[in-house]
């Protein structure tokens, strides 16, 4: 699908402020509401916009600890990735799974209520994941900036 300037303007606004109403979004992008909704529908059908997801603030639910766990896997086993990922999906406290080309093979974003809870998850659910060669943990201190905006 080819995007024109109007599509890009709408996307830029929507990504910057995903909570805008359809009317406010159209106004900011300088188009009528009918045009905006037609353009957005077209981008949804083409798969450019995959969906809009609610963001859950886990801290408000008592999950105070966030850790980025970086894994190197034992790649002598050809099934290492598949089996590791399948097992990681079964851990409820894992909120994101990424695979990489680089020093790190897989990253898991793990949330926990407190350090005691984290230690329990780490011992019982993380260290028991298959085919781990190395683990590094980055403990999150603060989210300085999180934005979906793109240089469109």
């Amino acid at each position, binding site marked *: 699908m080819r*995007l024109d300037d109007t599509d890009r303007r709408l996307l830029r606004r929507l990504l910057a402020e995903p909570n805008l109403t359809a009317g406010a979004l159209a106004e900011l992008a300088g188009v009528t509401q009918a045009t905006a909704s037609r353009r957005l529908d077209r981008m949804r059908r083409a798969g450019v916009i995959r969906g809009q*997801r609610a963001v*859950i603030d886990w801290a408000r639910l*008592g999950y105070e600890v966030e850790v980025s766990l970086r894994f190197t896997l034992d790649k002598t086993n050809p099934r290492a990735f598949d089996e590791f990922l399948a097992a990681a999906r079964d851990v409820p406290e894992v909120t994101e799974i*990424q695979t*990489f080309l680089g020093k790190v093979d897989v990253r898991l974003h793990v949330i926990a209520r407190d350090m005691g809870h984290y230690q329990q998850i780490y011992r019982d659910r993380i260290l028991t994941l298959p085919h781990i060669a190395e683990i590094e943990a980055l403990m999150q201190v603060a989210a300085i900036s*999180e934005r979906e905006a793109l240089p469109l």
Partner: protein
Amino acid sequence: MTTLDDTDRAFLRALADDGTLSAGDLGRRFGLSQPAAWRRVKRLQEAGILAGRRVDIDLEALGFGVTVFLGVKLAAKGRVSLEDFERAVTAIPEVQLVHHVLGLYDYRLRIVARDLSDFERILRRRIMTLPGVGEVEANVLLSEERRPGPI
């Protein structure tokens, strides 16, 4: 801290998948009246648990073929101000996420680029010139999935 019942959890799961669902949609799906569903959504919003929406887009279709996660260490701790680094790094348009972390690195960044040579340009001109920047490790994203989490 708010405690959730099973219906709250079902609402959160449904909205995490499709944030555009109305109170009417949720009510029909989980057997509640529209006003009752609306009150629940409102309560979850007021408690800050439902913290807005995120647009899920196909980055590649928009011409961003490369996403890179960077680990950044500051070179001279104590001598550079974290605020200076944070201000400069958040001003880079291609930087989508900045997390201050403890461990092997001081910051974790998520960067989008058109392709690898565009990433190289961002890395050289924007990242390596940040105040206080030291060692940098780059990992190119191959796949990503977001999980529903413990609800």
